[in-house]
Protein backbone atom coordinates (compact mmCIF):
# COMPACT_ATOMS: atom_id res chain seq x y z
CA UNK A 1 0.00 0.00 0.00
CA UNK A 2 1.57 3.20 -1.06
CA UNK A 3 -1.47 5.31 -1.70
CA UNK A 4 -0.13 8.44 -0.10
CA UNK A 5 3.24 8.54 -1.84
CA UNK A 6 1.51 7.80 -5.12
CA UNK A 7 -0.96 10.52 -4.49
CA UNK A 8 1.75 13.00 -3.58
CA UNK A 9 3.63 12.11 -6.69
CA UNK A 10 0.53 12.76 -8.76
CA UNK A 11 0.20 16.19 -7.25
CA UNK A 12 3.80 17.21 -7.56
CA UNK A 13 4.92 15.42 -10.69
CA UNK A 14 3.09 17.43 -13.28
CA UNK A 15 3.56 20.54 -15.31
CA UNK A 16 1.39 22.82 -13.22
CA UNK A 17 3.09 22.09 -9.91
CA UNK A 18 6.52 22.28 -11.42
CA UNK A 19 5.76 25.59 -13.04
CA UNK A 20 5.18 27.02 -9.56
CA UNK A 21 7.72 25.17 -7.45
CA UNK A 22 11.09 24.94 -9.13
CA UNK A 23 12.74 22.42 -6.90
CA UNK A 24 12.02 19.57 -4.53
CA UNK A 25 12.00 19.75 -0.79
CA UNK A 26 14.28 16.82 -0.04
CA UNK A 27 16.87 18.02 2.44
CA UNK A 28 19.93 18.38 0.27
CA UNK A 29 22.46 21.20 0.23
CA UNK A 30 21.32 22.04 -3.28
CA UNK A 31 17.72 22.43 -2.19
CA UNK A 32 18.73 24.46 0.84
CA UNK A 33 20.49 26.89 -1.44
CA UNK A 34 17.67 26.89 -4.00
CA UNK A 35 15.14 27.54 -1.28
CA UNK A 36 16.75 30.93 -0.82
CA UNK A 37 17.92 31.92 -4.26
CA UNK A 38 14.85 30.84 -6.21
CA UNK A 39 12.52 32.82 -3.97
CA UNK A 40 12.22 36.51 -4.67
CA UNK A 41 11.56 37.40 -1.02
CA UNK A 42 14.09 35.14 0.59
CA UNK A 43 16.88 35.94 -1.81
CA UNK A 44 17.30 39.15 0.10
CA UNK A 45 19.53 36.71 1.96
CA UNK A 46 22.58 35.03 0.51
CA UNK A 47 22.34 31.23 0.31
CA UNK A 48 24.90 30.93 3.08
CA UNK A 49 25.71 33.23 5.96
CA UNK A 50 28.44 33.35 8.56
CA UNK A 51 27.31 31.38 11.53
CA UNK A 52 27.71 34.07 14.20
CA UNK A 53 25.40 36.31 12.14
CA UNK A 54 22.53 33.90 12.73
CA UNK A 55 22.97 34.05 16.49
CA UNK A 56 20.32 35.94 18.38
CA UNK A 57 22.92 36.90 20.94
CA UNK A 58 24.81 38.76 18.21
CA UNK A 59 22.11 40.75 16.35
CA UNK A 60 19.37 40.49 18.98
CA UNK A 61 17.28 40.10 15.82
CA UNK A 62 16.33 43.73 16.25
CA UNK A 63 16.81 44.98 12.69
CA UNK A 64 14.74 42.11 11.36
CA UNK A 65 12.04 42.65 13.96
CA UNK A 66 11.92 46.37 13.18
CA UNK A 67 11.35 45.50 9.54
CA UNK A 68 8.72 42.97 10.47
CA UNK A 69 6.86 45.44 12.66
CA UNK A 70 6.97 47.89 9.76
CA UNK A 71 5.21 45.29 7.60
CA UNK A 72 2.74 44.65 10.41
CA UNK A 73 2.00 48.37 10.55
CA UNK A 74 1.55 48.50 6.79
CA UNK A 75 -1.09 45.80 6.87
CA UNK A 76 -2.99 47.10 9.90
CA UNK A 77 -2.63 50.62 8.53
CA UNK A 78 -4.19 49.72 5.19
CA UNK A 79 -7.10 48.10 7.01
CA UNK A 80 -7.56 51.24 9.12
CA UNK A 81 -7.65 53.36 5.98
CA UNK A 82 -10.87 51.61 4.97
CA UNK A 83 -12.60 53.14 7.95
CA UNK A 84 -10.90 56.45 8.52
CA UNK A 85 -11.35 59.71 6.60
CA UNK A 86 -9.01 62.62 7.37
CA UNK A 87 -11.78 65.18 7.55
CA UNK A 88 -11.98 67.27 10.73
CA UNK A 89 -15.73 66.76 10.83
CA UNK A 90 -15.59 63.01 10.94
CA UNK A 91 -12.07 61.82 11.82
CA UNK A 92 -12.82 61.55 15.51
CA UNK A 93 -16.17 59.87 14.89
CA UNK A 94 -14.46 57.34 12.62
CA UNK A 95 -12.09 56.41 15.42
CA UNK A 96 -14.94 56.12 17.91
CA UNK A 97 -16.71 53.86 15.41
CA UNK A 98 -13.59 51.75 15.16
CA UNK A 99 -13.55 51.40 18.91
CA UNK A 100 -17.23 50.57 19.36
CA UNK A 101 -18.91 49.61 16.08
CA UNK A 102 -16.58 48.12 13.51
CA UNK A 103 -16.07 44.36 14.03
CA UNK A 104 -12.58 43.88 15.44
CA UNK A 105 -12.05 47.62 14.96
CA UNK A 106 -10.79 48.13 18.47
CA UNK A 107 -8.41 45.22 18.12
CA UNK A 108 -7.21 46.58 14.80
CA UNK A 109 -6.62 50.09 16.11
CA UNK A 110 -4.89 48.78 19.23
CA UNK A 111 -2.53 46.63 17.17
CA UNK A 112 -1.60 49.52 14.94
CA UNK A 113 -1.02 51.82 17.90
CA UNK A 114 1.08 49.40 19.93
CA UNK A 115 2.94 48.29 16.83
CA UNK A 116 4.00 51.89 16.29
CA UNK A 117 5.39 52.12 19.81
CA UNK A 118 7.08 48.75 19.36
CA UNK A 119 8.80 49.92 16.20
CA UNK A 120 10.23 53.01 17.88
CA UNK A 121 11.59 50.82 20.65
CA UNK A 122 13.03 48.08 18.46
CA UNK A 123 14.72 50.50 16.06
CA UNK A 124 16.49 52.21 18.93
CA UNK A 125 17.60 48.88 20.37
CA UNK A 126 18.84 47.91 16.90
CA UNK A 127 20.93 51.06 16.76
CA UNK A 128 22.31 50.31 20.21
CA UNK A 129 23.35 46.81 19.13
CA UNK A 130 24.95 48.08 15.93
CA UNK A 131 26.94 50.55 17.98
CA UNK A 132 28.08 48.00 20.54
CA UNK A 133 29.34 45.60 17.88
CA UNK A 134 31.10 48.50 16.14
CA UNK A 135 29.27 47.53 12.96
CA UNK A 136 29.34 51.08 11.64
CA UNK A 137 33.09 50.81 11.08
CA UNK A 138 34.51 50.43 7.56
CA UNK A 139 33.06 49.35 5.20
CA UNK A 140 29.66 49.94 6.78
CA UNK A 141 29.87 53.68 7.52
CA UNK A 142 27.29 54.66 4.98
CA UNK A 143 24.79 52.03 6.04
CA UNK A 144 24.88 53.55 9.50
CA UNK A 145 24.01 56.91 7.93
CA UNK A 146 21.08 55.31 6.10
CA UNK A 147 20.11 53.82 9.45
CA UNK A 148 20.10 57.18 11.21
CA UNK A 149 17.78 58.56 8.55
CA UNK A 150 15.53 55.53 9.04
CA UNK A 151 15.53 56.24 12.75
CA UNK A 152 14.35 59.80 12.17
CA UNK A 153 11.72 58.57 9.69
CA UNK A 154 10.45 56.06 12.26
CA UNK A 155 9.93 58.91 14.73
CA UNK A 156 8.20 61.02 12.10
CA UNK A 157 5.94 58.15 11.03
CA UNK A 158 4.79 57.70 14.57
CA UNK A 159 4.49 61.44 15.17
CA UNK A 160 2.34 62.14 12.10
CA UNK A 161 0.04 59.28 13.07
CA UNK A 162 -0.49 60.80 16.51
CA UNK A 163 -2.66 63.64 15.19
CA UNK A 164 -5.01 61.48 13.12
CA UNK A 165 -7.53 60.47 15.85
CA UNK A 166 -8.18 64.20 16.20
CA UNK A 167 -8.65 63.87 19.94
CA UNK A 168 -7.29 66.07 22.72
CA UNK A 169 -4.25 63.84 23.22
CA UNK A 170 -3.06 63.99 19.63
CA UNK A 171 -4.10 67.59 19.08
CA UNK A 172 -2.10 68.96 21.98
CA UNK A 173 0.84 66.66 21.43
CA UNK A 174 1.15 67.94 17.88
CA UNK A 175 0.65 71.47 19.17
CA UNK A 176 3.59 71.06 21.54
CA UNK A 177 5.68 69.39 18.84
CA UNK A 178 5.06 71.85 16.05
CA UNK A 179 5.33 74.87 18.34
CA UNK A 180 9.00 73.98 18.53
CA UNK A 181 9.25 74.76 14.82
CA UNK A 182 8.29 78.34 15.60
CA UNK A 183 11.60 78.65 17.41
CA UNK A 184 13.79 77.40 14.57
CA UNK A 185 16.71 79.79 14.21
CA UNK A 186 16.29 81.90 11.07
CA UNK A 187 13.26 79.96 9.79
CA UNK A 188 10.71 80.15 12.63
CA UNK A 189 9.06 83.47 13.42
CA UNK A 190 9.99 83.28 17.12
CA UNK A 191 13.45 81.83 16.51
CA UNK A 192 16.67 83.78 16.96
CA UNK A 193 17.62 85.95 13.96
CA UNK A 194 14.39 85.17 12.12
CA UNK A 195 13.84 88.90 11.47
CA UNK A 196 16.69 88.67 8.98
CA UNK A 197 14.50 86.62 6.65
CA UNK A 198 11.34 88.49 7.61
CA UNK A 199 9.59 85.51 9.18
CA UNK A 200 5.98 85.88 10.28
CA UNK A 201 3.52 83.33 11.71
CA UNK A 202 2.03 82.97 8.24
CA UNK A 203 5.18 82.29 6.27
CA UNK A 204 7.59 80.46 8.54
CA UNK A 205 8.57 76.80 8.72
CA UNK A 206 5.76 75.92 11.11
CA UNK A 207 3.28 77.34 8.64
CA UNK A 208 4.73 75.07 5.98
CA UNK A 209 4.33 72.03 8.23
CA UNK A 210 0.76 72.78 9.24
CA UNK A 211 -0.56 74.42 6.13
CA UNK A 212 -1.85 77.21 8.34
CA UNK A 213 -1.15 79.16 11.49
CA UNK A 214 -3.18 76.78 13.65
CA UNK A 215 -3.86 73.06 13.58
CA UNK A 216 -6.92 72.75 11.38
CA UNK A 217 -8.14 70.82 8.37
CA UNK A 218 -5.00 71.36 6.25
CA UNK A 219 -2.79 70.16 9.11
CA UNK A 220 -4.85 66.99 9.48
CA UNK A 221 -4.66 66.32 5.76
CA UNK A 222 -0.91 66.93 5.71
CA UNK A 223 -0.36 64.61 8.64
CA UNK A 224 -2.47 61.99 6.88
CA UNK A 225 -0.67 62.18 3.55
CA UNK A 226 2.78 62.15 5.16
CA UNK A 227 1.76 59.33 7.45
CA UNK A 228 0.06 57.03 4.96
CA UNK A 229 1.91 57.73 1.75
CA UNK A 230 4.99 59.88 1.71
CA UNK A 231 6.97 58.68 4.71
CA UNK A 232 6.18 54.97 4.20
CA UNK A 233 7.37 55.28 0.60
CA UNK A 234 10.57 57.07 1.55
CA UNK A 235 11.22 54.65 4.40
CA UNK A 236 10.62 51.62 2.15
CA UNK A 237 13.04 52.96 -0.42
CA UNK A 238 15.67 53.52 2.25
CA UNK A 239 15.09 50.08 3.75
CA UNK A 240 15.81 48.57 0.34
CA UNK A 241 19.05 50.50 0.26
CA UNK A 242 19.77 49.46 3.85
CA UNK A 243 19.32 45.73 3.20
CA UNK A 244 21.13 45.87 -0.11
CA UNK A 245 24.06 47.53 1.61
CA UNK A 246 24.15 44.95 4.39
CA UNK A 247 24.92 42.39 1.67
CA UNK A 248 27.16 44.54 -0.45
CA UNK A 249 29.23 45.45 2.58
CA UNK A 250 30.08 41.79 3.02
CA UNK A 251 27.08 40.50 4.93
CA UNK A 252 26.53 40.81 8.60
CA UNK A 253 29.59 42.23 10.36
CA UNK A 254 31.78 39.95 12.39
CA UNK A 255 35.28 39.44 13.71
CA UNK A 256 37.65 39.24 10.76
Amino acid at each position, binding site marked *: MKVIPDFLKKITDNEIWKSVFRHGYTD*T*PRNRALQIISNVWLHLHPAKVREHGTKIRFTW*CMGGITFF*VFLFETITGILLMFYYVPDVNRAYADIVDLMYVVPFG*RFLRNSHRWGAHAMVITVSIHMFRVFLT*GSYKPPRQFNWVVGVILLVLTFLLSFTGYLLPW*DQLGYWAITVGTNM*ARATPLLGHEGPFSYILGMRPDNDVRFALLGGTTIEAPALLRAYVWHCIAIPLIASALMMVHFWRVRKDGGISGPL
Partner: protein
Amino acid sequence: MEVRQEKRGLVEFKDDKVFTWPTLVAKEFLAAIFVTVGLLFYSYFVDAPLRELSNPGQAENPAKAPWYFLGLQEALVYFDPWYAGVVLPGIIVLGLILIPYLDNNPKGNGYYTFKERKFAVTTFVFGYIFWYVLIYIGTALRGPFWAFFWPWEKWTHDFPTPPPMHDLPLPLGIILMGGFYFAGLTLPALVKRDFFMKLGVIRYSLTMGLLLTMIGTVIKMVFRLAFNVKYIIATPWINI
Protein backbone atom coordinates in the same frame (compact mmCIF):
# COMPACT_ATOMS: atom_id res chain seq x y z
CA MET B 1 19.08 12.38 7.72
CA GLU B 2 22.09 10.25 6.92
CA VAL B 3 21.91 11.30 3.32
CA ARG B 4 22.25 14.89 4.39
CA GLN B 5 25.25 14.16 6.58
CA GLU B 6 27.07 12.50 3.68
CA LYS B 7 26.30 15.11 1.09
CA ARG B 8 27.11 17.89 3.46
CA GLY B 9 30.66 16.76 3.80
CA LEU B 10 31.11 17.20 0.10
CA VAL B 11 29.90 20.74 -0.28
CA GLU B 12 30.91 22.41 2.99
CA PHE B 13 33.48 25.10 2.53
CA LYS B 14 36.23 25.54 5.04
CA ASP B 15 34.72 28.53 6.79
CA ASP B 16 32.07 29.23 9.38
CA LYS B 17 29.28 29.67 6.83
CA VAL B 18 26.00 27.86 7.29
CA PHE B 19 22.96 27.54 5.08
CA THR B 20 20.56 30.44 5.46
CA TRP B 21 17.74 27.94 5.04
CA PRO B 22 16.92 26.81 7.63
CA THR B 23 19.43 28.19 10.17
CA LEU B 24 18.57 31.87 9.82
CA VAL B 25 15.17 31.77 8.16
CA ALA B 26 13.75 29.53 10.86
CA LYS B 27 14.79 32.02 13.52
CA GLU B 28 13.34 34.90 11.57
CA PHE B 29 10.02 33.13 11.18
CA LEU B 30 9.96 32.28 14.85
CA ALA B 31 10.75 35.89 15.76
CA ALA B 32 7.96 37.06 13.44
CA ILE B 33 5.52 34.70 15.12
CA PHE B 34 6.51 35.75 18.62
CA VAL B 35 6.26 39.43 17.77
CA THR B 36 2.85 38.97 16.14
CA VAL B 37 1.50 36.93 19.02
CA GLY B 38 2.92 39.41 21.54
CA LEU B 39 1.45 42.43 19.77
CA LEU B 40 -1.94 40.82 19.27
CA PHE B 41 -2.04 39.58 22.83
CA TYR B 42 -1.22 43.03 24.17
CA SER B 43 -3.71 44.66 21.82
CA TYR B 44 -6.43 42.33 22.98
CA PHE B 45 -6.07 43.41 26.60
CA VAL B 46 -4.86 47.00 26.47
CA ASP B 47 -6.77 49.71 24.65
CA ALA B 48 -5.07 52.49 22.74
CA PRO B 49 -5.78 55.84 24.39
CA LEU B 50 -8.52 58.05 23.00
CA ARG B 51 -9.56 61.28 24.72
CA GLU B 52 -12.37 63.69 23.97
CA LEU B 53 -12.75 65.40 20.62
CA SER B 54 -9.98 67.93 20.07
CA ASN B 55 -10.77 71.39 21.33
CA PRO B 56 -8.39 74.23 20.44
CA GLY B 57 -9.95 76.34 23.20
CA GLN B 58 -9.13 73.97 26.00
CA ALA B 59 -5.48 73.04 26.38
CA GLU B 60 -4.57 69.73 27.95
CA ASN B 61 -2.64 70.24 31.15
CA PRO B 62 -0.02 68.93 31.00
CA ALA B 63 0.11 68.82 27.19
CA LYS B 64 2.68 66.21 26.30
CA ALA B 65 4.32 65.28 23.02
CA PRO B 66 4.50 61.54 22.21
CA TRP B 67 6.75 59.78 24.71
CA TYR B 68 9.78 59.46 22.41
CA PHE B 69 9.95 63.26 22.17
CA LEU B 70 9.45 63.89 25.86
CA GLY B 71 13.20 64.02 26.44
CA LEU B 72 13.28 67.09 24.24
CA GLN B 73 10.20 68.53 25.88
CA GLU B 74 11.86 67.97 29.25
CA ALA B 75 14.89 69.85 27.95
CA LEU B 76 12.55 72.83 27.44
CA VAL B 77 12.64 73.32 31.19
CA TYR B 78 16.29 74.18 30.95
CA PHE B 79 16.64 75.71 27.49
CA ASP B 80 14.80 77.98 25.10
CA PRO B 81 12.79 76.21 22.41
CA TRP B 82 15.24 77.02 19.65
CA TYR B 83 17.80 74.88 21.42
CA ALA B 84 15.70 72.16 23.08
CA GLY B 85 13.35 71.66 20.17
CA VAL B 86 15.44 72.34 17.11
CA VAL B 87 19.18 72.70 17.56
CA LEU B 88 19.65 69.96 20.15
CA PRO B 89 17.85 67.27 18.13
CA GLY B 90 19.68 68.57 15.07
CA ILE B 91 23.01 68.14 16.80
CA ILE B 92 22.03 64.66 17.99
CA VAL B 93 21.13 63.50 14.48
CA LEU B 94 24.21 65.13 12.99
CA GLY B 95 26.39 63.62 15.70
CA LEU B 96 24.94 60.14 15.08
CA ILE B 97 25.58 60.47 11.36
CA LEU B 98 29.16 61.54 11.99
CA ILE B 99 30.00 58.67 14.35
CA PRO B 100 31.42 56.30 11.71
CA TYR B 101 33.60 59.05 10.28
CA LEU B 102 34.88 60.31 13.63
CA ASP B 103 35.62 56.96 15.23
CA ASN B 104 38.72 55.78 13.40
CA ASN B 105 39.65 53.14 15.94
CA PRO B 106 40.06 50.00 13.79
CA LYS B 107 39.44 47.67 16.73
CA GLY B 108 36.07 46.36 17.81
CA ASN B 109 34.67 46.03 14.29
CA GLY B 110 32.02 43.34 14.33
CA TYR B 111 32.17 42.02 17.87
CA TYR B 112 31.31 43.10 21.37
CA THR B 113 34.14 44.68 23.30
CA PHE B 114 34.44 47.38 25.89
CA LYS B 115 38.16 47.13 26.52
CA GLU B 116 39.21 47.99 22.98
CA ARG B 117 36.99 51.06 22.63
CA LYS B 118 36.36 52.43 26.09
CA PHE B 119 35.92 56.06 25.04
CA ALA B 120 33.45 55.37 22.22
CA VAL B 121 31.29 52.96 24.19
CA THR B 122 31.23 55.12 27.33
CA THR B 123 30.24 58.25 25.42
CA PHE B 124 27.52 56.55 23.42
CA VAL B 125 26.05 54.61 26.32
CA PHE B 126 26.02 57.76 28.44
CA GLY B 127 24.14 59.71 25.77
CA TYR B 128 21.73 56.85 25.16
CA ILE B 129 20.89 56.50 28.84
CA PHE B 130 20.63 60.26 29.29
CA TRP B 131 18.08 60.40 26.45
CA TYR B 132 15.92 57.79 28.17
CA VAL B 133 16.31 59.31 31.65
CA LEU B 134 14.93 62.58 30.30
CA ILE B 135 12.10 60.67 28.63
CA TYR B 136 11.34 58.95 31.91
CA ILE B 137 11.24 62.25 33.81
CA GLY B 138 9.10 63.89 31.14
CA THR B 139 6.69 60.97 30.98
CA ALA B 140 6.30 59.91 34.57
CA LEU B 141 7.39 62.77 36.78
CA ARG B 142 5.87 65.83 35.14
CA GLY B 143 2.33 66.87 36.05
CA PRO B 144 0.17 69.93 35.45
CA PHE B 145 2.13 73.01 34.34
CA TRP B 146 5.04 70.64 33.87
CA ALA B 147 5.63 70.69 37.64
CA PHE B 148 7.78 67.94 39.08
CA PHE B 149 6.15 65.12 41.07
CA TRP B 150 7.78 62.03 42.49
CA PRO B 151 6.15 58.74 41.49
CA TRP B 152 4.51 58.44 44.92
CA GLU B 153 3.12 61.99 44.89
CA LYS B 154 -0.32 62.84 43.61
CA TRP B 155 -0.56 65.26 40.69
CA THR B 156 -2.13 68.43 42.04
CA HIS B 157 -2.48 71.96 40.86
CA ASP B 158 -1.11 73.52 44.02
CA PHE B 159 2.58 72.92 44.19
CA PRO B 160 5.14 75.30 45.70
CA THR B 161 5.98 78.24 43.46
CA PRO B 162 9.37 77.60 41.91
CA PRO B 163 12.12 79.83 43.31
CA PRO B 164 12.91 82.93 41.22
CA MET B 165 15.63 82.47 38.64
CA HIS B 166 18.34 84.81 37.52
CA ASP B 167 20.70 85.15 34.60
CA LEU B 168 24.47 85.14 34.94
CA PRO B 169 26.06 88.51 34.12
CA LEU B 170 26.93 88.51 30.43
CA PRO B 171 30.74 88.77 30.79
CA LEU B 172 30.78 85.95 33.32
CA GLY B 173 28.58 83.81 31.09
CA ILE B 174 30.79 84.34 28.08
CA ILE B 175 33.92 83.59 30.10
CA LEU B 176 32.37 80.44 31.56
CA MET B 177 31.15 79.09 28.28
CA GLY B 178 34.16 80.16 26.25
CA GLY B 179 36.43 78.76 28.93
CA PHE B 180 34.50 75.49 28.99
CA TYR B 181 34.91 74.90 25.27
CA PHE B 182 38.45 76.25 25.22
CA ALA B 183 39.62 74.07 28.09
CA GLY B 184 37.63 71.12 26.81
CA LEU B 185 39.25 71.37 23.40
CA THR B 186 42.82 72.05 24.46
CA LEU B 187 43.39 70.13 27.70
CA PRO B 188 42.65 66.62 26.42
CA ALA B 189 44.85 67.31 23.39
CA LEU B 190 47.74 68.22 25.70
CA VAL B 191 47.21 65.54 28.31
CA LYS B 192 46.29 62.66 26.00
CA ARG B 193 48.57 63.38 23.08
CA ASP B 194 48.17 60.00 21.42
CA PHE B 195 44.37 60.35 21.47
CA PHE B 196 44.77 63.66 19.67
CA MET B 197 47.37 62.38 17.23
CA LYS B 198 45.32 59.35 16.27
CA LEU B 199 42.26 61.42 15.47
CA GLY B 200 43.92 64.38 13.75
CA VAL B 201 42.80 67.98 14.17
CA ILE B 202 39.48 67.83 12.33
CA ARG B 203 38.17 64.58 13.81
CA TYR B 204 39.40 65.62 17.23
CA SER B 205 37.68 69.02 17.15
CA LEU B 206 34.38 67.59 15.92
CA THR B 207 34.44 64.73 18.43
CA MET B 208 35.27 66.98 21.35
CA GLY B 209 32.87 69.68 20.15
CA LEU B 210 30.01 67.20 20.16
CA LEU B 211 31.08 65.63 23.44
CA LEU B 212 31.39 69.03 25.13
CA THR B 213 27.97 70.06 23.86
CA MET B 214 26.49 66.91 25.36
CA ILE B 215 28.26 67.48 28.68
CA GLY B 216 27.45 71.18 28.53
CA THR B 217 23.77 70.37 28.16
CA VAL B 218 23.96 68.35 31.36
CA ILE B 219 25.93 71.07 33.16
CA LYS B 220 23.38 73.72 32.24
CA MET B 221 20.69 71.51 33.77
CA VAL B 222 22.72 71.23 36.94
CA PHE B 223 23.20 75.01 37.03
CA ARG B 224 19.47 75.44 36.81
CA LEU B 225 18.65 72.89 39.45
CA ALA B 226 21.37 73.80 41.92
CA PHE B 227 21.73 77.58 41.47
CA ASN B 228 18.48 78.67 39.80
CA VAL B 229 20.39 80.03 36.85
CA LYS B 230 18.02 80.79 33.99
CA TYR B 231 20.53 81.68 31.29
CA ILE B 232 24.28 81.31 31.19
CA ILE B 233 24.40 83.79 28.35
CA ALA B 234 21.56 86.26 28.08
CA THR B 235 21.44 88.75 25.22
CA PRO B 236 18.53 90.46 23.48
CA TRP B 237 19.05 88.21 20.46
CA ILE B 238 19.72 84.80 21.84
CA ASN B 239 19.74 83.12 25.25
CA ILE B 240 21.62 80.01 26.26
